[in-house]
């Protein structure tokens, strides 16, 4: 649905932030976007939603140049959740904040209300619909930002480091929400520094390094193939992937501690561990 074709971009007075990047995103994918701070991740995602124009190359949405429609048209298909949710929250109640996008659309009142209600329900915010957004915990504010994007019924949701500053439980809940949305057919692009999360939740990962695309393929292969110099790209091989790579013959492809433990326990003699919840 979204095609990035040989896109280059530079901020005035700085070295190119993106160099000749091409990327094809199909409907319903769950993609990780990784790389060092400053590698071009945020620049690329901003171009995907029309917040900026490439110096060369183009962004195509459903086969048509995105620049023809501009950000307003892009926003109907591609939702964007900023790293800091507070930068996009400005209204007095959760419901009115989520309603802002639909109010800009040429929808009927019923359609608008339905869009807001659906978005609040999908993100578990119905109980706080009348609360003051800035008085809620950060994990709630994050969900408000996601709900605001969902209210426009996007087919692709881009989240820029959504788990930074969130605790382990909040991360888990956020990833469950994104998994659920993806299960409903909404594509997800997750910009993240969290390698465990990348391994466990994404099927495909794109790595940027100094503005160039250096990897685009299955997430497990990114970490499993020693030919990929992930350290040079500023990434880290998750411990689960590092151990699984050594025992690949007995573990097969695993994505999480629970899967790894289950496959090793099979070889060690097996056990059922209540503490970790591993099913073996």
């Amino acid at each position, binding site marked *: 649905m979204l095609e990035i074709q040989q896109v280059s971009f530079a901020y005035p007075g700085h070295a190119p932030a993106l160099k000749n990047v091409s990327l094809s995103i199909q409907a319903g994918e769950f993609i990780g976007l990784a790389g060092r701070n*400053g590698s071009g991740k945020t620049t690329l995602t901003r171009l995907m939603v029309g917040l900026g124009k490439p110096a060369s190359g183009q962004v195509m949405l459903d086969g048509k140049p995105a620049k023809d429609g501009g950000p307003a048209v892009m926003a109907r298909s591609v939702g964007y959740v900023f790293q800091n949710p507070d930068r996009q929250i400005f209204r007095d109640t959760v419901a009115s904040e989520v309603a802002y996008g639909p109010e800009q659309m040429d929808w009927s009142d019923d359609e608008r209300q339905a869009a807001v209600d659906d978005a609040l329900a999908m993100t578990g915010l119905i109980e706080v619909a009348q609360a003051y957004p800035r008085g809620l915990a950060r994990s709630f504010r994050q969900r408000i930002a996601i709900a605001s994007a969902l209210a426009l019924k996007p087919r692709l949701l881009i989240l820029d480091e959504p788990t930074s*500053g*969130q605790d382990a439980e*909040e991360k888990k809940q956020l990833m469950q929400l994104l998994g659920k949305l993806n299960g409903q057919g909404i594509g997800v692009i997750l910009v993240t520094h969290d390698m465990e999360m990348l391994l466990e939740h994404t099927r495909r990962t794109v790595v940027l390094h100094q503005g160039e695309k250096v990897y685009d393929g299955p997430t497990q292969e990114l970490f499993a193939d020693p030919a990929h110099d992930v350290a040079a790209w500023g990434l880290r091989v998750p*411990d689960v992937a590092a151990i699984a790579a*050594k025992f690949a013959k007995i573990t097969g492809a695993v994505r999480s501690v*629970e899967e790894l433990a289950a496959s090793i326990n099979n070889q060690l003699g097996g056990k059922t561990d209540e*503490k970790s919840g591993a099913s073996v």
Partner: protein
Amino acid sequence: MDAVQFEDFSYHYPKTGTGLDQVTLSIPVGSFTVLAGANGSGKTTLCMAMTGLVPHFFGGSMSGQVRVARQVTTDRPVSDIAAGVGFVMEDYESQLVALTVFDEVAFALENMAVSSALIRERVAEALAAVGLTGLEERELSALSGGQKQRLAVASVLASQPKILVLDEPTSALDPEGSEELYSLLAQLNKEKGITVIVADHDLAQALPHADRMVVMEAGRVAFTGTLDEVFDRMLTEQVYASAVPALRRLKAALETETRKFSPWTSADEAVAEINASLPPMRRLSLSA
């Protein structure tokens, strides 16, 4: 000897009424302590109580006391405490005030009326410690996030604190930047004997470096002890268990009454021990 002691310390913010309840906690001199807990559990308040900002700056109600270097924090002004406790806030950019790297590190020393010759010496030492030598004249706006983070550390190091407190220092850093910061903290801890206290969500990063851990839950200390002791209790009692690093969750999942492993701090250690436990026919040749 303890660098910081909380003695039945309770504190409540004036507006929300949240804070800390009956915290009794000792942080030994020269230790490297990681503070864990869900958001809202009291980590930041604990950090601010060590620096005197709680209650001096925020007001509120309190009982019990906090001693830093054996002195009660409420008996001293924050500026006095700050000479011994360096604090890097979660929003570290908000504590950077100068135009250039040199001026930023010199700022606190200038306020302490340190001689210009000594300021130059201390700034050079602090920048060398964080790997920013050569960037003295660089404007802060031209620094990366990781460089700004290290500059914030250098700025507090210049005052030669005996205790360094960092609140979620890696939340904005990439994996490489996080590892560099933890290596720097470990070096300061081992070579200079600085007591390091870090509040963080990503406990895997702290695993190779920290020797003590405190888990906060709803304003109280849930567990404290060595990392092994605390991880074990987090898993056994299912308190914030999802935050236990992957290596330790794996270890717990593989151990039985008769099969025990040592506390792994790296994937290589885990691979070696798991391999040794496998039936001989299935073992790997790890040199390959």
